[in-house]
């Protein structure tokens, strides 16, 4: 006892001789459960883990934990559709933690303060070829380099980034941000060969003596559809339009631009065109709620003055005008023609109907399986051809930057194992920390911090970034909204609520342990743990 009371003279027997732990029928155990955010992140980020460090203001450590899984946080904080936030338990209390905005804050801090990746492991002597410097290729290159492999990226284009540069417009992803994060990967010793299109993968591997290859060539061929059109009609695909935005010669589209499609690409084209002073109209055959574009992007486009014609298809394109037919949804929700037509002025028509993969580099490779124009891979990301792995948009996927990054990491882990004649065994997943594991009483009310938006005039006339970032104080606040689902955050509740003093506090960063000599197994600690980091298990008899 630290402070001996003043009046104790006799030495009464202490109750410590009475080991009440023998009463127990269930025992509490500490465990880490899987936070729903981590579970939902396509790049496999340990979100709760990095928020934990951000909460204490240690942003560099937060960033370091983040980049163990994803080397592009500043990009992510701008373009990721953050499925983590959709899964966040806090959403059931007030609103989800602004994970994506904190991620962007960390990414921007890293660029501002020049944080570098840790030096790679000792060289393995193995050489890996990565084809394509999009997010998937960059992610694979980063992880392979960290494991000590020699990595060479062959990129057909003049600059790295893939669709992050030649698809996603500047007003959503400023190029300085992309450049900084790409450069940091190259600084690890990754070789990037630009303007180097791989025509034949087998040949390239053999010529340069690569031990394995990761293919991430994306999907760049704009899908076409048959539209009866006069000779003078100006029809062009969305990817070409967006790509030319990056170059010197801006695309010649005229004033009235029709964008055909309802996905994010259509919205990006329309918003870009608007910024160049034209008047875009998006034509889409179904309704807003059925459109594949994210609703917030549609909303932002509408705010900027983009017109959208829902339930319409293009019947005919001529010089200066198109004819659209109104559609109506049938019982099953499919659009059906109504026979009602309308003419719209149109200097050009941009087709944003999705992209196909250019598979020409795979010619002659044995064992491959191609379904619906995409390359099939097994769960370890390997194609049917040993040593050739693939990921990102060219394999069946949701086609997002984040999925592509996740594929790159997963492929790297498996390539590493394959190079060592081993198989990669992912650690078993922890059980999920669903909302039922949370004791919400303990969390104060705190609404999400909203990121500032650029004013509307500048949004309509410039390619300046639309969405602002958080500053230090509100990033910290946002990080502290995290419930730390399933993972002890040292709130001392178990230590405080045990009626038997059977919880031992091990000190900062060391969490707690149970004293099973006295724990009676009442379970109060487990019930009162805010974040679900304690579980009651039956005592063995």
């Amino acid at each position, binding site marked *: *006892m*630290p*402070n001996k*009371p*003043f*009046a*104790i003279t006799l030495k*009464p*027997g*202490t*109750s*410590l*001789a*009475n*080991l*009440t732990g023998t*009463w127990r029928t269930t025992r509490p155990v500490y465990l880490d459960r899987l936070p729903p955010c981590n579970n939902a992140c396509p790049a496999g980020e340990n979100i709760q883990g990095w928020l934990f460090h951000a*909460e*204490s203001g240690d942003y560099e450590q937060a960033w370091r934990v983040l980049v163990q899984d994803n080397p592009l946080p500043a990009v992510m904080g701008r373009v990721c559709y953050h499925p983590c936030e959709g899964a966040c338990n806090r959403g059931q209390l007030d609103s989800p933690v602004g994970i994506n905005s904190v991620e962007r804050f960390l990414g921007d801090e890293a660029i501002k303060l020049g944080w570098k990746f840790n030096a790679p492991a000792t060289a393995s002597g193995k050489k890996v070829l990565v084809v394509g410097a999009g997010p998937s290729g960059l992610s694979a290159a980063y992880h392979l380099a960290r494991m000590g492999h020699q990595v060479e990226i062959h990129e057909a284009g003049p600059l790295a980034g893939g669709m992050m540069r030649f698809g996603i417009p500047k007003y959503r992803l400023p190029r300085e941000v992309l450049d900084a994060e790409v450069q940091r990967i190259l600084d690890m010793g990754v070789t990037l060969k630009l303007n180097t299109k791989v025509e034949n993968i087998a040949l390239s591997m053999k010529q340069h003596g690569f031990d394995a290859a990761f293919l991430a060539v994306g999907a760049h061929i704009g899908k076409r559809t048959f539209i009866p059109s006069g000779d003078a009609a100006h029809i062009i695909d969305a990817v070409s339009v967006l790509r030319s935005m990056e170059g010197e010669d801006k695309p010649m589209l005229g004033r009235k631009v029709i964008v055909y499609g309802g996905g994010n690409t259509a919205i990006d084209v329309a918003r870009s065109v608007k910024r160049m002073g034209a008047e875009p109209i998006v034509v889409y055959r179904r309704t807003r709620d059925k459109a594949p574009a994210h609703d917030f992007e549609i909303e932002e486009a509408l705010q900027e003055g983009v017109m959208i014609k829902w339930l319409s298809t293009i019947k005919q394109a001529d010089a200066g005008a198109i004819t659209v037919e109104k559609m109506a949804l049938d019982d099953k929700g499919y659009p059906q023609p109504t026979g009602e037509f309308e003419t719209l002025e149109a200097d050009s028509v941009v087709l944003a109907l999705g992209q196909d993969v250019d598979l020409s580099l795979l010619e002659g490779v044995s064992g491959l399986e191609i379904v619906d124009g995409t390359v099939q891979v097994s769960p370890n990301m390997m194609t049917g051809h040993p040593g050739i792995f693939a990921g990102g948009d060219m394999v069946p996927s949701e086609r997002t930057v984040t999925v592509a990054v996740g594929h790159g990491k997963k492929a790297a882990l498996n390539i590493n194992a394959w190079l060592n004649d081993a198989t990669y065994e992912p650690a078993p997943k922890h059980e999920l920390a669903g909302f039922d594991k949370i004791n919400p*009483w*303990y*969390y*104060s009310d*705190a609404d999400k911090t909203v990121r500032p938006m650029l004013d509307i005039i500048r949004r309509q006339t410039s390619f300046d970034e639309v969405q602002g970032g958080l500053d230090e104080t509100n990033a*910290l*606040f946002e990080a*502290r*909204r*995290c*419930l730390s689902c399933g993972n002890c*955050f*040292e*709130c*001392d*509740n178990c*230590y*405080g*609520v*045990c*009626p*038997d*003093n*059977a919880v031992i*506090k091990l*000190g*900062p960063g060391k969490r707690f342990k149970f*004293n099973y*000599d*006295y724990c*009676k*197994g*009442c*379970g*109060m600690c*487990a*019930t*009162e743990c*805010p974040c679900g980091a304690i579980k*009651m298990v039956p005592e063995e008899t």
Partner: protein
Amino acid sequence: MGFQAVKFYQTGTFTVGNRLLAPDERSLQSVETRSNSINSGHRACQGCGEALGARYAIDAAMAESNNQLIAANATGCLEVFSTPYPESSWQVPWIHSLFGNAAAVATGIAAAMKVKGRPEVRVVAQGGDGGTTDIGFGCLSGMFERNDDVLYICYDNEGYMNTGVQRSSATPPAARTATTMPVGPEPGNVFGQGKNVPEIAMAHGIPYVATATVADLRDLEYKVRKAMKMHGARYIHIFVPCPLGWGTASHDTIRMARMAKESGTFPVFEAEYGEVTGVLKIRHKIPVEEYMKPQRRFAHLFGKNAHPETVARIQAIADRNIRKYGLLEDEGN
């Protein structure tokens, strides 16, 4: 309320501690060097609210008195589970005499310390609701009336638990106990009887009266420390659920206390010289039913032969508390 809400941290106001808080902003119970006034090895039931409440309160009193504290204890679970001769869990000078005279014993200790010129030694008396509101009531009222320099702490588990769950004057209406069985047209404890000792204490005009629960640690510590800073007769009434007597799960003790407060069943307030000076507001109001349903002592009011009219009467009592003490944020006080 008197304790400081912690800003900008997700937790801290409601949790026991928080790794990000400065040490002086943490609760006493979060600190490794807390005095653990009742040591491990005591024989209280699993999940006993009284054992927990007593450690919360006496640790706080120890801290505030610089460990110069003597405790007198009435008969009851707290005494029996902590001190079966020759062992004791108490790590404070502690004296037990009888079921009904803890207040008088404490008065005597306080007088003795005065005579001996030891003003730094402070005195607490403690007992269960039976020992306080029933048999010890005469001694207690005398202690109040004389304004003796004692902090009296009542651990209210709403019944005589130590002797097998009999009714006390703190047992709520309709509750089943060994002496108020759920039979007849009005099953369980009768309505319209019992005592509200915090209000009776206030009527004595003593310097400080407060209620608290084991679910609101910060508030409880604040009140004990505040009481220990004052002199004269002081009274704190702590709500401590009893899993055995109430028929609740051992892990639900704190939850029960929280629901008692959040439903308005148990108003949490403080008063100085007979006037209410602060209340702990309800955060997320719940109906009494939600609080009562998990307790087997109210089981006869639900299910097959339900008594919704009885539940409604208990709800009316809670509503009256809410009105009377201004327990809701917008109702003011």
